[in-house]
């Protein structure tokens, strides 16, 4: 197959562009969006590439329609993505919940900007962490990934599609304006160099009759896509394993939501990804995610030069969250610092994880600038 961009070599591109190219290499063939800074360049790249790979790129009337269209596309068999920023992500929340409830594999990119409301369109922020995890109503479980470099934006996009397909779930890729617009060297692999996962399809009529069952015992039902003669009914109402609405029986809701939680939580080891820097002998730990991790790495180096045993835990997956791992970390250090570009969101998760085993301190920064390494260093030194 011919690709509309060079593969098998490095390129110098924006984060947004990297996400678009990765999506196409991951097999995405349907993109629906609504322009918004700083995610518009993802759309623009998709608009350029999609027709050339016989995919669809369509500008919808709003973000609600965009996520609706990609869910429809997914049920028709396509790998599908939309991208937005804070205000648009807020609009998508209802249908994000629909995707959770109907177990539809989709990828939703949110390149965060300062908020609330229209906020700071061109400046980075990490204010949507809680919205990504808990934004939609009701009890739900999804996956949230957080890249910190343009290369990671590329790699995590492929991973987002793979996780979405593997676990039949929406995956949120949470970047920020800095990453969206920054240019870096990115290696764009040949298609045969990357692992691409496709959703489980029903093997027979019997499996197809249980579009929300658990025929394989792994919590992930095969997805009978439309037009194959299975006559599947998909509803956002509480439904049994056949897809029939059953809204007044507590046990049906418990079983369904229980499985939606379980299929993610039972596979935490596969889903959760993190990197540790200098943590083996650390007395002070920094926990961060996304763009701030880059300053944090530098801060750790400076602190080490100053003779302070600091280390960094960089979270690539924000949700599901490994509370146990944080507790283990807290047991080995005196203090944990959480630098983040908001008034404290990751901080609350880390604090809960630490479970009182170590003091946890927030290094909050808002306004649209990433923490400088020295800002982190100064707070750690005290």
């Amino acid at each position, binding site marked *: 197959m011919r690709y509309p961009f060079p593969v098998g070599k490095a390129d110098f591109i924006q984060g947004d562009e990297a996400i678009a190219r990765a999506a196409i290499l991951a097999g995405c063939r349907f993109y629906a969006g609504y322009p918004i800074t700083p995610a518009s360049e993802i759309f623009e790249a998709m608009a350029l590439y999609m027709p050339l790979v016989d995919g669809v790129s369509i500008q919808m*009337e709003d973000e609600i329609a965009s996520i609706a269209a990609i869910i*429809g596309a997914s049920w028709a068999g396509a790998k599908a993505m939309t991208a937005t920023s804070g205000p648009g992500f807020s609009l998508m929340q209802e249908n994000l919940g629909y995707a959770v409830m109907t177990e539809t594999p989709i990828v939703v990119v949110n390149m965060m900007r300062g908020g609330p409301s229209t906020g700071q369109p061109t400046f980075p922020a990490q204010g949507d962490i809680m919205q990504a995890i808990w934004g939609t109503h009701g009890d739900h479980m999804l996956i949230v990934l957080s890249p910190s470099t343009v290369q990671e934006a590329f790699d995590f996009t492929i991973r987002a599609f793979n996780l979405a397909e593997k676990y039949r779930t929406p995956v949120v890729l949470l970047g920020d304006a800095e990453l969206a617009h920054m240019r870096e060297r990115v290696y764009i692999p040949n298609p045969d160099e990357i692992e691409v996962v496709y959703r489980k399809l029903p093997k027979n009529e019997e499996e197809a009759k249980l579009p929300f069952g658990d025929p394989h015992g792994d919590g992930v039902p095969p997805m009978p896509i439309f*037009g*194959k003669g*299975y006559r599947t009914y998909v509803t956002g109402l509480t439904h049994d394993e056949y897809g029939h609405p059953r809204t007044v029986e507590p046990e049906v809701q418990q079983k369904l939501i229980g499985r939606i939680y379980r299929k993610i939580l039972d596979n935490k080891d596969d889903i959760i990804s993190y990197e540790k820097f200098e943590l083996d002998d650390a007395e002070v730990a920094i926990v961060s995610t996304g763009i701030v991790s880059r300053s944090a790495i530098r801060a750790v180096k400076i602190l080490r030069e100053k003779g302070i045993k600091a280390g960094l835990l960089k979270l690539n997956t924000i949700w599901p969250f490994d509370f146990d791992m944080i507790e283990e970390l807290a047991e080995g250090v005196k203090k944990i610092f959480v630098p983040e570009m908001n008034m404290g969101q990751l901080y609350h998760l880390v604090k809960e994880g630490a479970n009182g085993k170590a003091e946890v301190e927030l290094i909050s920064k808002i306004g649209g600038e990433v923490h400088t390494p020295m800002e982190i260093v100064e707070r750690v030194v005290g």
Partner: protein
Amino acid sequence: MYLKSAYEIRDKYLRKDMLPTIFCPGCGIGSVLQFTLRAIDDLGLNQDEIVWVSGIGCSSRVPGFVNFDGLHTTHGRALAFATGIKLTNPDLKIIAFMGDGDAAAIGGNHLIHAIRRNLDVTVILINNFTYGMTGGQVAPTALKGLKGTTAPYGQFENPFDIAQLAVSAGANYVARWTVFNYLQGMNSIKKALQKEGFTLVEFLSPCPISFGRRNRMKTAPELIRWYQKITVPLAKAKKMPQEELEGKIVIGEFADRDRPGLVREYQEYIKRAKKMMGWEE
């Protein structure tokens, strides 16, 4: 015209394990559903190549009762979901079963944009002037003076004329009937299903429980008689002075044209893109 027995249609197309339906006595949705299934049957369309989409509301529960692929989505968004399905798999024919509140209020923007794009979909629209599922609040189609739980003293806003809106936005086929005009209704659905692009058939449909009993029409026959009183066939309406049409609803076929549908336009767009990039001659 020979009509198959209703039992035959029921057995062929309904999911027996989902019955009974949620519809109240006297509701018109079942009739319109029957017209639609009869149209599909008469045309001999492949059941496995039709997807039913819907939003939220009484009429939006229809995809659950028919034995087809079905997507019962969020309130008002059915046509946005349909856009994704149709563009991903153009071989699928899409029927959107919607209510007036679903399509014209919360989904109004999706409706006009789906029409503007000429999305290949057949909308079957149940208009009962009310939000039936939530207990009889006024809908944006409610005529002035009609009562609802949220307008207990009579609606003071102007109503939407959905069919006229669809004509203006560019739909390929638009018709409106009452459930009483069953032959015209069925024929319109048949025409709509055979057309490329956006097609819409609106039905004035009785809702005695949520709507009728708040407006002194407690039974379906009373509502049907009222529809007969307030509706005017298009040919007759053309000759009537504007004052006389005040408070009346025109029924008939309002548009029948063949603009290219979204699928065809996008396929052309792909060709153009490849040509512009020098990928294809």
